[in-house]
């Protein structure tokens, strides 16, 4: 289930749960209260199922994006030796260009 749908499903369950909580509060007989409590627990568990499912899917999404970000930031080594090497190469290329025009 896509996350938007999971959020929507959770909201629907929460709305049903709130209605049952209010109905249980208003009920006077123990049988109605017990039935409402059972239904509330079931809804609570269904909400919890969604929370656990969404949380377990989050890691893969985050890790893929962080891996992409790590690849981008470490593609060229930025340490001193590499930066020096790249700069020397650029200067050489510039010098060759100047020689070519000279």
């Amino acid at each position, binding site marked *: 289930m896509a996350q938007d749908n999971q959020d929507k499903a959770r909201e629907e369950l929460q709305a049903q749960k709130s209605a049952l909580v209010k109905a249980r509060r208003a009920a006077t007989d123990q049988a109605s209260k017990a039935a409402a*409590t059972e239904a509330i627990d079931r809804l609570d568990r269904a909400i*919890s199922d969604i929370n656990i499912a969404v949380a377990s899917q989050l890691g893969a999404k985050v890790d893929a994006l962080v891996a992409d*970000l790590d690849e981008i930031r470490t593609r060229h080594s930025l340490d*001193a030796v590499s*930066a020096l090497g790249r*700069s020397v190469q650029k200067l050489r290329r510039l*010098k060759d260009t*100047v020689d070519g025009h000279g």
Partner: protein
Amino acid sequence: MLRIVVTVCMVVLSAACAQLPRAEFQAYRESVKAAQTAAEPMIADYAVAERAELLERMRTDSERAYDDYFPGFRISDSDALSTIDMPPGAGAVERAFRGIAAYNDTLAALAENRNIDEARGQLGQIIGDIGGIVPGSEAGQAVARGVSDLVLTVLSPAIAADNRAEFKRILLEGKPKVAALIAVLRAHTPTQYSTTTRLLSRRADQDPPPPDRAEVINRINAWHRAFADYVALLGIMEQRLDDLAQAVENPKSAPLLARAAAGAAQLRAYADALRLSLAQLRATI
């Protein structure tokens, strides 16, 4: 010789022309710091609530034996029980912030040309080591130091220009990934909120109502405000990243600079509001 002078001048000139948008970068870094500072205690509370949710699931799992204790152990039990590692949701949120922080640190290292000082240190170390290995080379060492200083003086502008080019590349290529991470963090807030407030909601819903119901409801409402401020901080973070990317692509844009300054005040207001919400929550625990 003339060619070398021309070459170096061209490099220095190109370096001078392409300045980094420091105000926008500073504004972006502050926005990330504010969001991360706000997120840390929220992640800690989310982790506690998530473990409780997972543990309850384990206890009520009809496929598992449980009689006040578990006779068997599953590897997945670690998510609910380990206090060394984070549970899946909280751990992922934390990793997202860590990934963004590592990206920002790389950008900061490039903006501050830290590798030039590193190069100076490494060359000095090499010259020192040679002095230790080759006896009587003091005179040679002095010459080597002079040459190394000269090399670095000449090459520093080139390294700085390379750093600016890398800054721009990393920023622009990484921006969609950071924006996606911010979107993932934002999209996760309904779940994070639901898990964080689950036990409080359950208490508020009890029948008959518990004596501290009003206090419990105040805490749920405080969490609601805290999450609203957290989402606002994530939005500011995204906006500052956009501003920075625009400033890199269109340098010296005065309206952007003005917006960065105005944004800093807005950011402080959101961060203060969130700190207050979280402090109120902690005061009522």
